[in-house]
């Protein structure tokens, strides 16, 4: 009886581990789920760092009173350390996002993406998305 319980428990733990690994970020049921990031009055992307899988989409929502951007384009950065784009990935830029506006981007190239908000880059409004390869 004890052995069965132990087996069930370890199977359950394994299942939890597999699900958690298969869908990093906010998704629990699969990597097709959209990951949500907010943009704040305190000049932050929240969460500032997130990990997703190739093919997954991130949706940024401007929950602040300010105008922000989601910009991942080395040509538009004031400082090179605020931007990173894996080789082969296209730059992207939401343009100005008014309060409540949303912007979506689907990541098709794995690697580390560093992005920023154009007006508030110097005030530390930068974020990071790590895109893992498909399983």
């Amino acid at each position, binding site marked *: 009886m004890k052995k069965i319980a132990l087996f069930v428990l370890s199977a359950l733990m394994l299942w939890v581990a597999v699900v958690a690994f298969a869908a990093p970020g906010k998704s629990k049921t699969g990597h097709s789920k959209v990951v949500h990031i907010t943009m704040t*009055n*305190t*000049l932050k992307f929240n969460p500032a760092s997130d990990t997703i899988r190739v093919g997954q989409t991130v949706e940024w929502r401007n929950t*602040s*009173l*300010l*105008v922000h951007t989601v910009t991942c384009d080395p040509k538009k950065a*004031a*400082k090179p350390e605020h931007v990173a784009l894996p080789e082969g990935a296209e730059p992207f830029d939401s343009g*100005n996002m*008014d*309060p409540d506006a949303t912007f979506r981007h689907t990541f098709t190239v794995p690697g580390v993406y560093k992005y920023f908000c*154009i*007006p*508030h*880059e*110097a*005030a*530390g409004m930068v974020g990071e998305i790590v895109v893992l390869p498909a399983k």
Partner: protein
Amino acid sequence: MRSVYQKFHRRWQRPFGKLVLLAAAVGLFMAGTVRLQAQMKENPKMMQMIKKMKQKAVAKDYVRAHMKVKNPKKLLGGPIEVTVTQNSGGVFVALPDFRRLDPRIFGTPEMPRAFEGTPGITGLPVFLREVENGQFTKMKKKSPFGDKYIVMANGKLSLKAVDATATDAATTEDQLQFRASWQDKAGNTYEVRANKVAAHGLEFPTFGGVATNVILHGFTGLGTPLMPSEFTYVAFWGMGQVLKNGKVVDGPRLVHGMLTEYVRTEGYKLGFDKDVTPTRLQFHLMVAPFKPDMEHMSYMPAPVKTGFKLPNGMELPFWHVMFENLQISANRK
């Protein structure tokens, strides 16, 4: 445009007479630590020092040499017309805070810099600076120049300025149309308007009221050293009104605006000179808690009636508001 100041002079200085001058010598530039002000009132030595420091403002003789010129020179290359607008998005409203002191600007206790002039307008007396381990650390009083802010909604900005006259003078061809507004959580609208420029400064030059492509603040001695040195694409110094929900609540007031390189850092902290980001821009609006003191070519403290209450119940005594969602255009006329 001397008349702007003269009007001001008549309206504000005469009725209050010596009382105002006493307040000028005694008080500093905003309602802050009451204790410190009381201390200064009781301390004639300190009053004398502030008076002396006001007289010592470094650009005073320069302004004197220009303020009576009737036919000032024009800007090299012709007048520049500038438009700056913000149509949507919020603003950053600075709250009273203790300014950290950049050693590059303020020197050290052994070799202080930037102490002359009206405290807060062009200088910061050494006795208003905190010292730790032989270095200046921060101001002893709160000022409009610090790291604290709140965000307010619906920021609108419309600036049309013409920089035609090059230098300070008795008259100017510089032009100004300025309007800015924003809203608090309760839906109150705050607004500042200005359309008269100050043809000459008092403690530092105003370049005819509108200046373009010049460095201000910080090491320059042009305006408060509590702001970092910043390249300024356009700046104006004028007289205008402060409104709340469409009604004038204060005026005439000194209104100063400037489009500059970015001087905020991580967490929106006001940076030192080393922190300036040259390739990002911001617009600052300042309605300072001072009024001009023509007789002494100086300034006297006068909190602004903003109509905005701080959490502690005190009325915010200045407007220092930053706009960062900007459209900018400029051309030579």
